C-alpha cells in the first residue's frame, strides 16, 4: 500500500481504477456502439430529408416504435433517481454502492427518451414552437414541462453527491494523469474541502433533492401515460394508466439498474462492493413490482374484457388473438419467467419441501373442500359459460403458448444455478423484465391505433421499417455509450459515501454484507 500524504485518506484503488486504466475491450465496445449510433444518425438525417414515409407509420397508425421507445426509456429513467431517492429518504444503508449507478441511468435514459420525441416529430425544426406557442391544455406540454424539470432535477441530484468525489479525485490523481482530467475535477469539485459547514450544506441539499425528486418522477410517467389516456381511444382512455405506467417505469428501472450493476461488477472487479446482498434486496424490490405489474395488468384487461364494449373488444382481440398476440403473449411469458426466477431463491429447496398433500388426512380434506367449491361455482353455469362471460374466449388460441410457457417455466425453475447464484438469477429476471416492459409499451401504443373507434373505418397495419429498427438499436447503443463514457470520467461507486459509512455505521455482521469487510477505506494516512 502506497503511503499517502498527511490527512488524506487512502482511496481504494479499485474504485478509481476504471477511471485511470482503460483496456482494449473498452475501446472496441465504444467503437462498436459509436458505429451503431452513427448508423442511426445517418437514417435520421435521411428521414428528415424524405419525411416520415421512411418509417412504417401510416394512417391510422400515427405512432410506432419511436413512441414505444420514448415510453420505455422515460420509464427506465425511474431507475435511478426514484430508487436512489427512496433508499436515501428511508435511510437504507445498503444503498451506498448503488446510488450513483442508478442516478446516472436516470439522466441518460431521459436524454435518450426525450430525443425519441424529436425523432418522431414531423417538423423537428419547429420544436421551439412548444415554448413560443405552448398551450397548457395539451397533455404534450405537461410532458415537456415535467420531463424538463425531471432532467434538470436529476442532473442536479447526480451532481450533488458527485462533488466530494470530484475533490477526492482532484487530490489523489496520480501525477501521470492527463492535465485535462485534473482541470475537470478541479472545476467540478467547486472548491470542495470537506469542512463541517460544507458537509452540512451538502447533506441538506441532497436530502431536499431526494424528497423533491420523488413526486417529480411520479409525475413524469403519469403525464406520459396521459398522452394516451386523455384521448378517447379504446384501451387508452383509462383511469388506471397513470399509476400503471409509473409501476411499469419503476419496474423496468430496477431491472436496468441490476443489468448495469452486474456489468460494472464484472468489468471493473468491484465484487467487494456490489455484493450478493445488493442483488438480493433489489431482487425483492423487483419481485414486489412484478407482483404489482401483474395486478395492474390483470385489473386493466379484465375490466376491459368483462365490459365487452365493441370498440374496446376489437383492440383486446387484436392483442389476445389477433396480429399482436406474439407481442402480447411474449410480454406475459417474459414477465412470468421473471416472476418465477425472482421468487425461486425465496422458496425452500426442493429436497426440503414436505408437501402436505402426501399426508393422507390433509389431502383428503383439501380434496373435499376443492370439490365443494368447484361444485358450488360450476354446477349452475358450467366452466365454459363462466369463461365465455369473462370474455376470455379470444385468448383460447394462445392456450398452447401458455402451456408451453408453463412447461418452460417449470424447466427453468429446476435449474439449480438460479437458486444458488442469486446474482445470475436476478440478472436473468431483470433481462426478461426489460424485454417484457418494452413489449408492454409496444402493445399499449400500437394495437389501439389499428382499431379506430369508428366502425367501418380501415383497420390499420403496422410493420416497423428498417429506419425505425436502426434508430431503435441506435437509441439503445447511445444509452450504453453515454454510460460507458460516464464510468470513464466519474467514479461509478460513490467514494465518499462509502467512506462515510465506515464512520457512521456501527460495525455489525450485517454491515459486512453490504460494504467491503476490511480495506484501505477506513485507514487514515
Amino acid at each position, binding site marked *: 500500500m502506497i503511503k499517502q500524504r498527511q490527512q488524506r485518506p487512502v482511496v481504494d484503488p479499485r474504485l478509481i481504477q476504471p477511471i485511470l486504466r482503460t483496456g482494449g475491450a473498452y475501446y472496441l465496445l465504444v467503437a462498436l456502439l459509436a458505429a451503431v449510433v452513427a448508423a442511426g444518425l445517418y437514417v435520421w438525417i435521411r428521414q428528415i430529408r*424524405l*419525411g*416520415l*414515409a421512411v418509417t412504417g*407509420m*401510416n*394512417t*391510422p*397508425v*400515427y*405512432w410506432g416504435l419511436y413512441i414505444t421507445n420514448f415510453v420505455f426509456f422515460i420509464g427506465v429513467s425511474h431507475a435511478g433517481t426514484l430508487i436512489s431517492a427512496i433508499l436515501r429518504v428511508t435511510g437504507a444503508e445498503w444503498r451506498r454502492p448503488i446510488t450513483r449507478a442508478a442516478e446516472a441511468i436516470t439522466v441518460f435514459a431521459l436524454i435518450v427518451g426525450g430525443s425519441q*420525441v424529436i425523432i*418522431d*416529430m*414531423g*417538423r423537428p425544426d*419547429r*420544436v421551439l*414552437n*412548444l415554448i*413560443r*406557442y*405552448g*398551450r397548457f*391544455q*395539451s*397533455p*404534450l*406540454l405537461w410532458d*415537456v414541462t415535467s420531463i424538463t424539470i425531471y432532467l434538470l432535477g436529476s442532473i442536479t441530484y447526480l451532481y450533488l453527491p458527485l462533488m466530494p468525489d470530484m475533490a477526492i479525485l482532484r487530490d489523489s490523481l496520480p501525477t501521470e494523469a492527463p492535465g485535462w482530467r485534473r482541470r475537470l475535477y478541479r472545476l467540478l469539485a467547486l472548491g470542495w474541502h470537506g469542512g463541517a459547514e460544507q458537509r452540512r450544506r451538502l447533506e441538506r441539499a441532497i436530502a431536499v433533492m431526494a424528497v423533491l425528486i420523488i413526486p417529480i418522477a411520479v409525475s413524469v410517467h403519469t403525464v406520459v401515460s396521459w*398522452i*394516451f389516456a*386523455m*384521448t*378517447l*381511444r379504446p384501451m387508452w382512455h383509462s383511469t388506471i394508466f397513470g399509476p400503471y405506467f409509473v409501476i411499469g417505469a419503476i419496474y423496468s428501472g430496477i431491472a436496468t439498474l441490476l443489468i448495469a450493476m452486474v456489468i460494472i461488477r464484472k468489468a471493473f472487479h468491484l465484487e467487494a462492493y456490489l455484493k450478493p446482498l445488493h442483488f438480493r434486496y433489489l431482487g425483492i424490490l423487483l419481485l414486489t413490482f412484478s407482483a404489482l405489474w401483474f395486478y395492474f395488468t390483470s385489473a386493466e384487461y379484465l375490466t376491459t374484457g368483462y365490459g365487452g364494449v365493441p370498440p374496446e373488444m376489437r383492440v383486446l382481440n387484436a392483442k389476445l388473438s389477433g396480429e399482436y398476440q406474439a407481442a402480447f403473449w411474449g410480454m406475459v411469458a417474459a414477465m412470468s419467467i421473471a416472476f418465477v426466477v425472482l421468487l425461486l431463491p425465496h422458496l425452500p429447496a426442493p429436497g426440503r419441501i414436505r408437501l402436505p398433500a402426501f399426508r393422507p388426512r390433509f389431502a383428503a380434506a383439501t380434496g373435499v373442500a376443492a370439490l365443494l367449491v368447484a361444485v358450488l361455482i360450476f354446477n349452475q353455469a358450467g366452466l365454459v359459460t363462466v369463461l365465455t362471460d369473462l370474455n376470455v374466449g379470444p385468448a383460447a388460441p394462445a392456450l398452447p403458448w401458455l402451456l408451453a410457457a408453463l412447461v418452460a417455466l417449470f424447466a427453468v425453475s429446476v435449474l439449480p444455478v438460479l437458486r444458488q447464484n442469486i446474482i445470475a438469477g436476478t440478472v436473468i429476471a431483470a433481462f426478461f423484465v426489460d424485454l417484457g416492459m418494452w413489449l408492454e409499451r409496444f402493445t399499449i401504443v400500437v394495437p389501439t*391505433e389499428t382499431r*379506430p*373507434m*369508428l*366502425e*367501418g*373505418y*380501415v383497420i*390499420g*397495419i403496422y410493420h416497423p421499417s428498417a429506419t425505425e429498427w436502426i434508430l431503435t438499436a441506435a437509441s439503445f447503443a447511445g444509452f450504453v455509450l453515454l454510460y460507458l463514457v460516464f464510468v470513464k470520467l466519474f467514479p461509478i461507486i460513490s467514494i465518499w459515501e462509502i467512506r462515510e459509512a465506515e464512520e457512521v455505521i456501527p460495525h455489525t455482521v450485517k454491515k459486512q454484507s453490504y460494504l467491503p469487510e476490511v480495506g484501505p477505506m477506513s485507514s487514515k494516512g
Partner: protein
Amino acid sequence: MPRWGMVIDLDKCTACQACTVACRVENNVSFAGPDEYRRGRAIFWNTVVGVMEGEFPEVRAEYIPMPCMHCDNPPCVKVCPVGATYRDAEGVVKQLYDRCIGCRLCMQACPYNRRYFNWQVPEWPGTFTAYRNPDREPQPRPKGIVEKCTFCEQRLRKAREEGRPIGSDDAEGVVPACVETCTGGARYFGDLDNPDSIVSRLSRSPRAYRLQEELGTEPKVYYLRPGQWEKES
C-alpha cells in the same frame, strides 16, 4: 355570426366519390400514388366509408361520406400543444400549417380519424401534375405537418370579399367543393344558427343524426338516415 354546418342525405348519396375528387382538386391535396396508398399514406380530406351490416345474403351496405365533422367541442383542438389547430369564430376547425410541429396528437384525439399527416413531400406523379393548381389557395402543404378539411375556407373568404351569398339556401350561394359537385344533390351547406336555413331545418329532422354523438364532440356535420329497406317477400 354564422355557424357553418353540413347535412348529408344518405338516401341521396350514391357513393360515387365525386366529393372526394372535387375536394382533392379544390384543395391541392397531393396524390400518394398506388404504392404509398397501399402503405396508408394517402390523404383524404373527404372520404367515403363503407359499412357492411348483416350476414350474407341479408347484407346491407351503407356508405358514409366523411368530411371533417367540425365539432363544436373538438378533441383535436384541445390537445394541440402549440395551438396549430383552432376553431374559428364561425365554428370551422382550421389548421395553421406553418405552426404545426407534426406531433400527431390531434390525429390520435380525433375520434373520426379525419386528420391527415404529410408522410412525404407532396407529389403529383406523372399525368396527375395537371391536377395541381399552383395559383390557387390553399397551396400544397409541406411534409411533416397535419392537414384537414376546412369547409373550403378559401371559397367562403372569397365569397365574403365579393359580397356573394354563402350556403345551399341560395341558388347562387357559395358552398364547399364537395357540396357543389355532389351528383345526387345529397349535401347541403349553410348556417346552423339560422333557424330558417336548409341545414338548420334538416338537422332537426327525425332522420338526422351525427356520428358518435355520445362522445359529446358536438359535430356540425349531420346525416339523414337512409329509409328502411324492406326485403320483398
